[in-house]
C-alpha cells in the first residue's frame, strides 16, 4: 500500500490562487474595454477626417468668401472702424477654418472598420502589456511606449505591426514572472488595484467621449445613414448654397467697388 503524500496549500498560496483568478478576469475585462475605447477613438478620428473633408472644407471656402466680402466693404468704407474690425475678424476666422479643414486632409480615411483578427490581437496586447500592470516606473514607461505604438497600429489597421509588438514583448525579460508566494501575492494585489483604477478611467473616458460634439455629430450622421440618407452630402449641399449666395454678394460688392 502506497501512501500518497498530499501537500496542502498554505493560506497565502490559497489567497494567491484566488487573487490570480480575480486578476485574470479583470485583465480580460480591461483588454476588452481598452479595445472598446481604442475603437471608439479610431472611429471618431476617421469620422472627423471625413466630416472635415466633405463639410469642413466647404465651411473654410465660405469663410474665405465672407472674409473677402468684409475686406471689400472695408475698402469701400476706409474710415469706418467697425468695418476694419469686422474684416480682421472675418480673415482670422477664415484662416482658422482653413487650418482646421486642412489639418486632417492627408490622413483622411473613409471609415474605421477593424477586422476581428485585428481586434483579437489588440485585446491580447492590452492584456499582456497594459501599463497599469507594471510594478515600477521604468517598466511602466516601457509598456506605455509599446501601448502607444499598438494604438497607432490599431488605428491604421496594421496587423503585422501589432503582431511584431506582441512578439517583441513575449521575448523580453519583463514577461518573465518573479518567484516567491508572498512577493507574488503583493504583486498581484497591486496589479488588481491598478487594473480596477484603469477600468474606472476607461469608463469615464468613454462617457466623456460620448458627450463630445464630434460624437453627437457622428451619431446623427449614422442614424441618418440607417434611414438611407446621406446627411453629410445634404450638409455639403446646404453649405454650397451659402457659398453661392456669398459669391453673388461678393460679385456685387466687387462691381460696386470697381465703379467707385
Amino acid at each position, binding site marked *: 500500500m502506497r501512501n500518497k503524500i498530499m501537500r496542502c496549500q498554505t493560506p497565502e498560496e490559497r489567497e494567491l490562487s484566488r487573487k490570480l483568478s480575480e486578476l485574470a478576469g479583470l485583465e480580460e475585462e480591461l483588454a476588452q474595454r481598452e479595445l472598446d475605447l481604442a475603437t471608439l477613438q479610431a472611429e471618431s478620428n476617421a469620422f472627423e477626417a471625413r466630416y472635415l473633408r466633405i463639410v469642413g472644407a466647404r465651411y473654410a471656402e465660405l469663410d474665405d468668401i465672407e472674409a473677402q466680402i468684409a475686406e471689400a466693404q472695408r475698402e469701400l468704407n476706409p474710415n469706418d472702424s467697425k468695418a476694419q474690425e469686422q474684416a480682421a475678424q472675418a480673415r482670422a476666422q477664415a484662416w482658422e477654418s482653413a*487650418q482646421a479643414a486642412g489639418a486632417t486632409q492627408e490622413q483622411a480615411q473613409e471609415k474605421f472598420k477593424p477586422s476581428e483578427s485585428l481586434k483579437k490581437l489588440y485585446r491580447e496586447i492590452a492584456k499582456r502589456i497594459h501599463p497599469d500592470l507594471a510594478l515600477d516606473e521604468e517598466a511602466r514607461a516601457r509598456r506605455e511606449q509599446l501601448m*502607444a505604438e499598438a494604438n497607432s497600429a490599431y488605428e491604421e489597421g496594421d496587423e503585422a505591426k501589432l503582431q511584431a509588438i506582441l512578439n517583441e514583448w513575449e521575448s523580453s525579460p519583463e514577461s518573465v514572472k518573479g518567484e516567491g508566494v508572498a512577493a507574488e501575492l503583493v504583486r498581484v494585489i497591486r496589479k488588481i488595484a491598478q487594473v480596477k483604477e484603469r477600468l474606472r478611467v476607461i469608463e469615464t473616458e468613454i462617457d466623456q467621449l460620448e458627450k463630445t460634439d464630434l460624437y453627437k455629430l457622428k451619431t446623427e450622421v449614422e442614424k441618418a445613414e440607417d434611414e438611407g*440618407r446621406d446627411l453629410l452630402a445634404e450638409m455639403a449641399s446646404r453649405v454650397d448654397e451659402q457659398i453661392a449666395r456669398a459669391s453673388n454678394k461678393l460679385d456685387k460688392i466687387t462691381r460696386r467697388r470697381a465703379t467707385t
Partner: protein
Amino acid sequence: MSDKLNPDNGELVLTSVHRLPTKRSCLVKRGLQLIHELKRREIRVLSNLSTMGEIEAFFPELLSMIIQRKLGSKFALRVMFTSTPYCKELLKLAEGHVFDIFILILNNIIFPSEKVPAENREKNSLQLVTHLRTTYRKPVIALYGWPHNPSYADKAKLAGASFVFQTPFKSKEFEEAFEKCLDMLLRFDEVPLKRLKVS
C-alpha cells in the same frame, strides 16, 4: 493610456486624445448646428386650394404622407400649408414669408376684378405663375380645368410651371411630381429657370 482621474474631485484628466483643437471643434459645432437646422426644416407650401372645399383637408394630409414615406420618421420634414383663394393675398403672403413650393389651381384664383372675361383670367393666372417662378425660384405645381383650351398646359409650362396637371388627374402622378419637388429642395438645388413666356 495616461489619462487619470483627479483624486480630489474624481474628474478625468484628459490627454489630447479626444480634446479636439479649438479650430476643429468650431467646425464640428457648426456642423451640429447645421444638422439641427436641417432637422427643423419645414416644407412650406403656398396654395389657393382652399377654394376647393373637399380637397382642402386632403392635400396637406397627402403631402405629409409623401414626405413621411420618402424621408422616414426621424428626419421627416413638416409641411406648413398656407392657402388663400385671393391673388392679392397670395402675392402678399409670398412676399412676406419664405415658401418652398407653390401649388396653384389656375382657374380658381380670385383676381381683384371678378368681372374680367375668362380669357383674361387664364392669362392672369399664367402671369401669376411667371411672377412666382421668377421672383422666388421655387417649384410651381399648376392644376387647371379648362377643357376648352387644350394648349393651356403648354402655355402654363412656358409660363414657368414645373409640373402641370389638367383635372381630373391621377393621384400617383401628382405624388411623383411632389416627390421631384422635394428632391430638388433636399438637394438645395435652385430650380432651373426655363425661358418663360406668357401667351
